[in-house]
């Protein structure tokens, strides 16, 4: 259930405490306004999937699973593979989540991940054709929010990127395409900023989310370009807020991206060592 307009679930006093802190460039969990919680990435956590990753952003936890199968392309893009992104809220991830088909929130988070990858041209869909018009690679990217402590958006974005990067084709596809993985062209990472009163902060915790006026998720690439932006919640933004967010998103996106790349690299070298 959505909260009343002027009061988060922790009450008006908490709001004032939060604002007091923000004025001193501090947050209630000790972070500065532009710092993320600890990020932990585990790869290949679901070995049955062609690729998988678990991301822990503070206590928020998202799982990404990638299945790669051969299938029929869409009629209007016979010369392209297919990317399908879904996001599921595990009902134990938060008391307000209900089992069932994805709601507005889940659809929103999933679409931002989808658009960041698709619009950022991270995957060369044209390279995923086995037989034009008849047989292409279908990428099933399924995300599960298993513990929600705020900023599911960025955790999902990172998990998606890590799972795609570490995914390996099943034998049949690998031999048909002559390579064993997706080979990403770009590395989109979402950075989410929340606005409370006049303050903009990154990676909002769940306590902060309750008091946000608005949220802006900005997905950037390694070359500094932006591939997706999404404002949510009903508070308005100024142009300066947006530009400040874009600049911060690039900076923080670079930091997050570096950790993903490093983790995947380490994983691959370890995997190679194991297979020697």
């Amino acid at each position, binding site marked *: 259930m959505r909260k009343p307009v002027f009061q988060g679930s922790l009450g008006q006093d908490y709001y004032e405490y939060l604002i007091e802190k923000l004025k001193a460039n501090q947050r209630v969990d000790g972070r500065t306004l532009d710092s993320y919680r600890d990020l932990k990435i585990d790869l290949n956590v679901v070995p049955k999937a062609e690729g998988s990753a678990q991301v822990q952003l503070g206590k928020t936890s998202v799982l990404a699973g990638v299945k790669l199968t051969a299938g029929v392309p869409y009629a209007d893009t016979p010369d392209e593979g297919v990317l399908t992104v879904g996001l599921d809220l595990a009902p134990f991830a938060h008391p307000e989540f209900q089992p069932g088909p994805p709601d*507005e929130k889940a659809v929103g988070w999933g679409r931002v991940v989808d658009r960041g990858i698709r619009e950022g041209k991270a995957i060369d869909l044209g390279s995923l054709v086995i037989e034009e018009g008849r047989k292409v690679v279908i990428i099933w990217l399924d995300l599960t929010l298993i513990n929600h402590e705020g900023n599911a958006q960025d955790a999902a974005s990172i998990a998606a990127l890590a799972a795609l990067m570490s995914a390996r084709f099943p034998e049949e596809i690998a031999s048909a395409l002559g390579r064993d993985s997706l080979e990403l062209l770009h590395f989109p990472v979402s950075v989410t900023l929340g606005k409370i009163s006049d303050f903009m902060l990154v990676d909002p915790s769940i306590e902060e989310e309750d008091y946000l006026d608005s949220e802006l998720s900005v997905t950037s690439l390694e070359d500094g370009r932006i591939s997706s932006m999404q404002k949510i919640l009903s508070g308005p933004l100024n142009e300066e807020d947006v530009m400040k967010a874009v600049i911060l998103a690039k900076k923080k996106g670079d930091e997050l991206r570096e950790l993903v790349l490093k983790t995947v690299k380490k994983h691959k070298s370890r995997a190679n060592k194991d297979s020697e």
Partner: protein
Amino acid sequence: MSKLSQEELLTDDGIRNDGRRVDEARPFEVEVGVLTQANGSALVRQGKNVILAGVMGPYEAERHSQYLDRAVLKVRYHMQPYSTNDRKSPTYSRREMELSRAIREALEPAVILTDLPRTEIDVFIEVLQADGGTRCASVNAASVALADAGIPMKDLVTAVAIGKIRDTLVIDINDLEDENGQADFPIAMMPNKDKITLLQMNGLLDEAEIKKSIDMARGVIGSLYTIQVNALKKKYTPLAVSKEG
């Protein structure tokens, strides 16, 4: 729809596929009070988009969904099967759910919900013909329909999508430009407050392009806003979906 090259979309002389210049918005028309059973309504034609918005309420919200201190605003964006080039299934899709939310959050900052505690206001939007930028046209229709319904508002909400073609920013993109262009950047504002209430971007833009897009949008939104206000000043118009009707 066949794919168009960037050069087909924008000539060397700066002319777009529908004859417009890069900074030229599409024809924009608004009719108010076109429905009799809705409390407020508006028909918007923005380019070839034809969008009908109706507001039901405010009425007393059901107990389990009402708020003691404000109204609940619900928005449903729906496309008719014949509105698109390929027939669309009439079933409510994830994309329609996503757009409904974006439109609702674009409108909420403008509606003074606290003036109407315990009530519900429903905004229903039917896309009769789609031509790129339907979410912006829907915001434009819905905010006028809310005003027509007498819902207290701080400002209207006005929206336009900026695009990028042949590495050039262009205003108020149509269907072909959306499908074949390099970016789609819908922006809604409360014009008198200079506040952004909807912002979505798909495509590839750099920092400077983002800034320039917002500035371009602000300019167009000013013009569209005037048309919205003028429409609200006119009296009831019988509903005719066709321009000639």
